[in-house]
């Protein structure tokens, strides 16, 4: 059975790559059901003010093999990161002798829905805060531990673990809180700003040309609902700000620092664009 399925998907892959030579390749007509029980929302009518009529998860733009890996949590290598995150959740660190669990107990209860609603307004810093920065805030203020550096220490696995507690829940931001709207606007400007020697914006690839191939890559809408995602090419979890920086670098531009105001605005705006899609963390991508 397994073997037969595998051969089937190989043939399908061959058809897809041939089609890429000539025809417009639409997002795959398929359903993402995790472990045959949790159906994910991978297509949704977009929110008011969105330039596209429908938002589509990046999952639809991947090959049949990659899609299959995400639908099976035993096969999804990103789940190892989630398990690692669970260990960190329960590990005491810092001068206060506390772990995350000391304050938040069972993450499946206390963190359910959290990942679907971030970034949130943080009145203390007067800025939006994402999961990575929220973790750092807890480490410094409540645990007496050092903040994680970007992509270092437990940052990616712990972020993946927390977001995974919202698996399947639709993304919904509160833009009415604090100055969130202002950051949304600033993020939108970044999204449409053409950068680098190649003179391209996010919209050039993910809005205008979504669904088309750019060499071997099938361009998605650049939605962020699967982050941190597991990238098969790199064999590891990839954080959202790392992806942002990679895409900007590809336009041959200098890229902003992780968690800079520019990229925080972009996170607010791109998360909003994916409103209604299920949190897929850890998504699996090529």
């Amino acid at each position, binding site marked *: 059975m397994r073997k037969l399925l595998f051969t089937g998907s190989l043939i399908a892959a061959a058809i897809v*790559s041939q089609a*890429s*030579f*000539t025809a*417009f*390749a639409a997002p795959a007509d398929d359903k993402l059901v995790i472990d045959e029980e949790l159906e994910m929302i991978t297509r949704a009518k977009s929110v008011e003010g969105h330039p596209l009529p429908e938002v589509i998860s990046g999952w639809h733009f991947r090959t049949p093999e990659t899609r299959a890996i995400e639908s099976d949590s035993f096969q999804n290598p990103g789940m190892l990161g989630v398990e690692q995150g669970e260990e960190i959740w329960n590990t005491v660190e810092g001068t206060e002798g506390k772990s995350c669990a000391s304050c938040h107990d069972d993450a499946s209860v206390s963190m359910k829905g959290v990942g679907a609603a971030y970034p949130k307004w943080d009145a203390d810093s007067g800025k939006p805060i994402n999961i990575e920065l929220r973790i750092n805030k807890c480490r410094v203020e409540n645990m007496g531990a050092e903040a994680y550096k970007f992509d270092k220490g437990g940052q990616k696995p712990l972020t993946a673990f927390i977001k995974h507690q919202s698996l399947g829940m639709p993304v919904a931001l509160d833009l009415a809180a604090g100055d969130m709207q202002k950051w949304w606007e600033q993020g939108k400007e970044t999204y449409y*700003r*053409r*950068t*680098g*020697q*190649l*003179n*391209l*914006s996010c919209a*050039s*690839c993910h809005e*205008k*040309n979504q669904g*088309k*191939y*750019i*060499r*071997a890559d099938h361009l998605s809408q650049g939605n962020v609902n699967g982050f941190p995602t597991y990238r098969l090419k790199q064999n590891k979890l990839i954080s959202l700000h790392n992806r942002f920086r990679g895409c900007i*670098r590809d*336009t*041959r*531009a*200098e890229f902003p620092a992780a968690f800079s105001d520019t990229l925080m605005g972009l996170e607010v705006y791109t998360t909003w664009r994916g409103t209604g899609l299920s949190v897929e963390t850890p998504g699996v991508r090529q």
Partner: protein
Amino acid sequence: MSRFLMTLCGIAATAVVQFAVAAETAPGDVEIKNLSIDQPLTDTAGDAVSGKDVFSNRKLGNCLACHANSDMKDQLFHGEIGPGLDGVASRWNEGQLRTILVNAKAVFTEDTVMPGFYSLEVGEDVRENLIGKTILTAQQIEDLVAYLSTLK
């Protein structure tokens, strides 16, 4: 060698350098008239074989990222962002092809996603080591024009 001779050689060398520079139109000096650049950008005629390499090479034109081209069937993965380039030389003449390559915006409006390959009108925050530089050299543009002209 006498001092006199050395000076003479110096003058000759300077002349050669100046000649080489004068043989290439700088990006800011390219003249576009009626959507066409009629003057080649260099004195050396374009070479279609080199142009074919510039077309497919990911570090040079990487044109295949966006354009399918049946002449390169041996290469996997042709992009779909721009139109396929089969028969492109029957749709555009040499001067027009040169313009599309130098600065596609001059032909297809500001909104096009095709980069300007010999233009300094670029995006913001250009990577520091690329500031003031064009994606391709004048000679690579001429080679590409020669190559595209074979796609009839």
